[in-house]
């Protein structure tokens, strides 16, 4: 196995080293030995079909699951459980129905201590940065799907984490809203220097967001490559030929007889 395929391991903020996981009672490993590293401030995407193990890998990275073998490290230290330096955005917004948008964003803070005026101001700024400045007191039921996803994103960012883990957070949204949220995410991560590991089954989403994209199949990483697009992404990049070419290349890898080929750098 060519170790130079993962040049970022040495300086990674989040590193996965030979991580394996099998659900109790399953015949095969759901995550079958994955090495990966996300450096500080970088955005990496994991692409794969449903059931390829990418969500499980993300939960291992979050410390929500403990690997059977291998290690997950955050800033060099082995992770033993969820870390306050890591924010997680789930597939569903998972907002608390009985709290306002503002209080939902403040939830991570209020579980540790009584929120201060500064915390409230930070939450207000985050929501305002996502265009929800007028909806602070709305309950989730009175928000659209896109607005709920924005509140969930703001909640993950309120503790100023070094790393965001995102599990197909925009998959249920319409195409236009999804693009707006992708742009919001890129802008917020860039301005705060937040690294991100973004799991998706949408090739265009992976190309839009990622500095690097890894392709997963059957619990293994079958391919990884840098995305040949400038950062920050220019407006309208989604309609450029170079964007389409990058998508097509990934699509061919996902279609190919990947697992037998092994990892291609």
């Amino acid at each position, binding site marked *: 196995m060519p170790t130079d395929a993962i040049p970022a391991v040495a300086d990674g903020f989040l590193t996965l080293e030979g991580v394996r996981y099998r659900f109790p009672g399953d015949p095969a490993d759901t995550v079958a030995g994955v090495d990966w590293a996300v450096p500080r401030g970088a955005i990496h995407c994991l692409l794969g079909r449903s059931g390829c193990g990418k969500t499980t890998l993300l939960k291992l990275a*979050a410390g*929500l699951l403990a690997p059977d073998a291998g290690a997950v490290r955050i800033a060099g230290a082995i992770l033993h*459980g*969820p870390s*306050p330096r890591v924010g*997680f955005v*789930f*597939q*569903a917004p*998972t907002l*608390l*129905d*009985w709290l306002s948008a503002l209080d939902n964003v403040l*939830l*991570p803070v209020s*579980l*540790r201590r009584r929120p201060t005026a500064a915390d409230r101001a930070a939450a207000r700024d985050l929501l305002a940065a996502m265009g929800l400045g007028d909806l602070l007191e709305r*309950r*989730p*039921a*009175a928000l659209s799907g896109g607005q709920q996803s924005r509140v969930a994103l703001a909640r993950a960012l309120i503790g100023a984490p070094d790393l965001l883990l995102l599990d197909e957070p925009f998959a249920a949204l319409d195409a236009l809203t999804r693009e707006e949220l992708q742009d919001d995410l890129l802008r917020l991560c860039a301005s705060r220097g937040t690294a991100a590991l973004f799991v998706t089954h949408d090739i265009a989403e992976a190309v839009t967001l990622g500095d690097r994209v890894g392709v997963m199949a059957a619990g293994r990483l079958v391919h990884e490559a840098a995305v040949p697009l400038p950062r920050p992404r220019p407006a309208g990049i989604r309609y450029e030929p170079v964007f389409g070419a990058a998508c097509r290349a990934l699509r061919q890898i996902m279609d190919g007889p990947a697992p037998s080929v092994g990892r291609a750098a």
Partner: protein
Amino acid sequence: MRTRLASALLLAGLLAAWEAWCRSGAVSPLVLPAPSAVADTLWGEIATGRLWPHLRVTVTEMALGLLAGTVLGLGAGILLAEWPALHRVLRPYVLASQLVPKLALGPLLILWFGFGLTPTVVITALICFFPLLENTLTGLEQVDPGKRELFRMLGASRGQTLLRLKLPSALPVILAGFRVAIVLALVGAVVGEFVGGRQGLGASIIAAQSVMDSSLIVALFVVITAVGTVVYEAARGLETLILRRYARG
């Protein structure tokens, strides 16, 4: 509004038919008293003040039984939901305790506590216990796994997860159980008095039966129904108030 009018008209019609039937002499007033006789009796009970001590006793039994049953049912529900192993061990006993007809416990409870308030309160509490327990358990176990994972990710303690996620999420289901319990509490208090009461609306029914005063029995039905309606509506109002704070929207 139209449906309320229709309901009222239906009631008036039924009462008129009942009154007419009784006045026709086809049925003995001992078997079925006329509505006018019932109204007279009821008014007499109210005017002489004979009704109030009984009403007070029954409402007290109901309130104490409901309180004890709710606290115990809610507490046991939380305990069993938080410790599933305990739940598996105790499940058959909880079920058995509910399958025992609680009125059949009456004579035993009278042996233990004597006649009066206590055995009825105990019966009422036992009856109210089960809907609270079942609904608390169901509500706490139905909490969205995604939100539990969120709380784990945020490093929430077990107590925080219970107080700030599970109980608020389960509140609509728990309150529905409370609404069932409140109706059962009245039944428990009245029927409990049949067995061991000296005072109260149920005990008054037994006393009226012994002197064959059927119009007093029906008058007491009216009072019991009125108490039930008031308490049920109060519970609904409380529920709406709490859910406005906690439910979606």
